[in-house]
């Protein structure tokens, strides 16, 4: 009991600390001061009266949403004395593997840099700045020569690294047995089996209504759809994050989706947010980064060629270029097994005072990265809001898809989950595919790394992402990949 209590108070302390620095805190403080003018606030019962006022005016709800958001994102500390690396990734061999993978990426980036003799970053001359500013809404019309650039890595390179991942403490034995895992991933992580998945995804059961299935033309809307939409509208009216997250497990109606996602991710477009985005835009205008060319190349190769997302090409540049300048993203490395690459000012190699993170947000884009943003363009049209949503989606979910960790939503676990499901429930198919040299993970890996973006029709994809938000987990991707092979 004591342990739980002290854990809880630790969590509370951490959340309070985190929120104290946030904008919400400042707003609440202002509101509290302003409320003193109100007649119903009496000096004798000041605390209760202000609390009551917050409840009525909806500020309590906002606070609740913020707390809920923190709980969803930050992992609970396992032990007060746990070092920060453990928060990133508890297993040593995983940390080591991630470290060496990062070294390889950086090497690749640096060699490209030297080959092309392009600096990692440079200040743009004024004329170029003006030109870029004019073209900001149609950067897609630019046709820079990108032929010499190549993506730093592609999902299949990453897969090779995962395949070679081994736990030095684990002895698999050479003899085949029931327990032998036939797939490519050979690390002993715990993944859910079907009974556990059923329990976890209880709202996706056959007896519960689902959007995408129970709203098809054959089913009369009175049966499920109408009621579901009504509840959705109510949830939005209440502005309750937790309720929205619960609600969306059954899928979101098309018209409500944009607002629901914003509510769950606790995004509200405040003037400060818009200002922040504008600041990032200014950074883009003033400085040119090598990473920008990588982003351009990626968009041209993937999203621009997609039958549905080509329309949103310009938005993708506006989001991704700003994203790479956003130092607030560095915060997520506290719980990401990856670490941001460091770069040194020319001539000061090794001197810590002259080290900067490169790119400023610490995230090096790979082939297909822009596809994380593309589906969001369907829902959000205002650039700063689109940006916020994407950033939040990245620091909550997408980063796990390209870093090596033992987290149940990390890509390693997802691959293992996929293969285990296949081996357990479709063993003949699995065996056959192995025999003909087509390991199923090689097919499904790219689907999962991209969270199926570009591999599913947009309406299907958005319904899938509804569930990612609803269950705060990426395991649905592995389940979906497994179903694809059924």
């Amino acid at each position, binding site marked *: 009991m004591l342990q739980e209590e002290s854990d809880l108070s630790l969590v509370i302390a951490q959340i309070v600390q985190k929120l104290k620095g946030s904008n919400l805190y400042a707003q609440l403080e202002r509101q509290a001061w302003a409320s003193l003018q109100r007649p119903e606030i009496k000096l004798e019962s000041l605390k209760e009266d202000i609390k009551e006022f917050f409840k009525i005016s909806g500020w309590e709800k906002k606070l609740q949403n913020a707390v809920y958001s923190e709980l969803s994102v930050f992992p609970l500390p396992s032990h007060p004395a746990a070092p920060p690396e453990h928060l990133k990734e508890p297993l040593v061999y995983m940390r080591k593997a991630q470290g060496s993978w990062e070294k390889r990426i950086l090497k690749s980036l640096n060699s490209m840099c030297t080959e092309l003799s392009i600096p990692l970053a440079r200040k743009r001359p004024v004329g170029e700045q003006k030109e870029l500013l004019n073209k900001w*809404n*149609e950067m*897609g*019309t630019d046709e820079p020569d990108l032929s010499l650039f190549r993506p730093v890595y592609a999902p299949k390179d990453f897969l090779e690294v995962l395949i070679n991942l081994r736990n030095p403490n684990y002895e698999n034995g050479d003899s085949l047995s029931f327990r032998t895992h036939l797939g490519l991933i050979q690390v002993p992580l715990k993944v859910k089996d079907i009974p556990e998945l059923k329990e976890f995804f209880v709202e996706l059961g056959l007896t519960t209504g689902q959007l995408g299935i129970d709203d*098809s*033309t054959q089913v*009369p*809307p009175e049966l499920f759809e109408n009621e579901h939409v009504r509840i959705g509208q109510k949830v939005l009216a209440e502005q309750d994050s937790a309720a929205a997250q619960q609600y969306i497990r059954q899928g979101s109606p*098309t*018209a409500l*989706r*944009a607002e629901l996602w914003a509510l769950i991710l606790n995004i509200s477009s405040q003037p400060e947010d818009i200002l922040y985005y504008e600041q990032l835009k200014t950074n883009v205008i003033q400085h040119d980064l090598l990473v920008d060319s990588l982003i351009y190349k990626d968009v041209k190769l993937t999203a*621009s*060629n997609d*039958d*549905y997302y*080509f*329309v*949103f*090409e*310009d*938005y993708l540049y506006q989001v991704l270029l700003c994203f790479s300048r956003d130092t607030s993203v560095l915060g997520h490395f506290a719980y990401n097994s990856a670490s941001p690459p460091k770069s040194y000012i020319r001539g000061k190699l090794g001197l810590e005072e002259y080290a900067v993170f490169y790119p400023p947000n610490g995230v090096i884009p790979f082939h297909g990265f822009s596809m994380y943003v593309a589906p969001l*363009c*369907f*829902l959000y*049209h205002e650039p700063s809001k689109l940006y916020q949503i994407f950033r939040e989606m990245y620091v909550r979910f997408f980063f796990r898809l390209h870093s090596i960790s033992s987290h149940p939503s990390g890509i390693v676990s997802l691959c293992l989950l996929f293969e285990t499901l296949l081996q357990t429930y479709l063993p003949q198919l699995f065996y056959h595919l192995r025999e003909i040299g087509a390991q199923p993970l090689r097919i499904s890996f790219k689907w999962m790394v991209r969270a199926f973006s570009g591999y599913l029709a*947009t*309406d299907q994809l958005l319904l899938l992402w509804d569930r990612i938000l609803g269950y705060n987990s990426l395991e649905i991707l592995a389940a979906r990949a497994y179903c694809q092979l059924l």
Partner: protein
Amino acid sequence: MILEKDPKPWNQNYKGHGLSKGKEREQRASIRFKTTLVNTLMDVLRHRPGWVEVKECQEASGPRVADTPVVQREPKGSRQPGFVEGDWDFYWCDVSWLRENFDHTYMDEHVRISHFRNHYELTRKNYMVKNLKRFRKQLEREAGKLEAAKCDFFPKTFEMPCEYHLFVEEFRKNPGITWIMKPVARSQGKGIFLFRRLKDIMDWRKGTAGKKLTSSEAQPARSAVNPPGGHDARSSEDQKDEIPVENYVAQRYIENPYLIGGRKFDLRVYVLVMSYIPLRAWLYRDGFARFSNTRFTLSSIDDQYVHLTNVAVQKTSPDYHPKKGCKWMIQRFRQYLASKHGPEAVETLFSDMDNIFIRSLQSVQKVIISDKHCFELYGYDILIDQDLKPWLLEVNASPSLTASSQEDYELKTCLLEDTLHVVDMEARLTGREKRVGGFDLMWNDGPVSREEGAPDLSGMGNFVTNTHLGCVNDRKKQLRQLFRSLQSQKKASS
């Protein structure tokens, strides 16, 4: 005649959608088809069970040409005038053949051909505008201003050169707006340009069109007067024999188009008309949105790539990457709008589009020669503006059937298959069907309602039309069920 009849409950007096009787209903051992088009149409016709391609056509007074599997286009003017017995049951012809031969071709009762004789009343921009204006006036007389306002889906248009002075008047009333000049009878975006100053068209008048203008101005302004019978075949024939006169229309340019991703687009929708008197029209569920490759801005009037969304024009734009295709299926478009504006706004938009299809057909109903041999598959081009109001750009009698991508190929082959199902050469349908594959019966001498039990959105007992543009098209399943039940009905009655 009031057009908005009291909607009859669907099960009373339900009219069949017009099946042929008697001799035409005989089952034929094989159906001989002919077409000059290749690509998707040829694939669909060749794969249809029981359909045989007609070998090279026999000239009236010539030796029979050796059997060749490919039907070749007959050189223009080579046919001898006089009656020639057609040796085909079905001809998907092109409009030039129609113009030259329709009047001298005898067709059996069962024979079908893919165009109406004077379709240009709807598809040539100047005739369509005239017919619409006339129809609108008639509506205003009979049913009042409100009803007539439902015809305000085409931008203000003036025929050139005969309405030049009217145009100048309108132009002066609205200084600074943009106008678009379109040749009346060309396709694929050829010859179109935008202008804001009268000076721009003065130059154009003096230039290419100058000489032709004077020659047509000298003639009595035939086109300004609207003979009750409409423009008959002879007058257009006359025009053809003389120096070809380039007729243009000047139309108010829609300056606030709805943009997606900063790009302009238009919608291509397919409407199948089986007869005009009575008016029977089907609407296909699939269609697509065609995007301009470049970002929309009014400042670059000269950049025709920005403003014209025909795929043909886009293909020549320097930005064009063939892999892109720059098309969205209309289902995708409908979803995008619904997530942005909500389902009610989308319902309103789509029912406004239904209104466009029906009114445009009604406006030419009395003018088009409704030959029972004829049917026509129209391609409607619709532009949406920022207030979600749809505008009719034009109607195509020969919408492109060439596929620009795999998805496009599937759409067009399914469209053509379903067209042939509705035309029903095999005499399988009962005539009571409201849906055949991807086609929904939109108008059957009156509005057609959805199945019973479907709740209507407005809740005021208003009519819910039987159109599903941009909705799920589960045509394979529907066709399977349809034909299965037709078969069992036949067995039961035999």
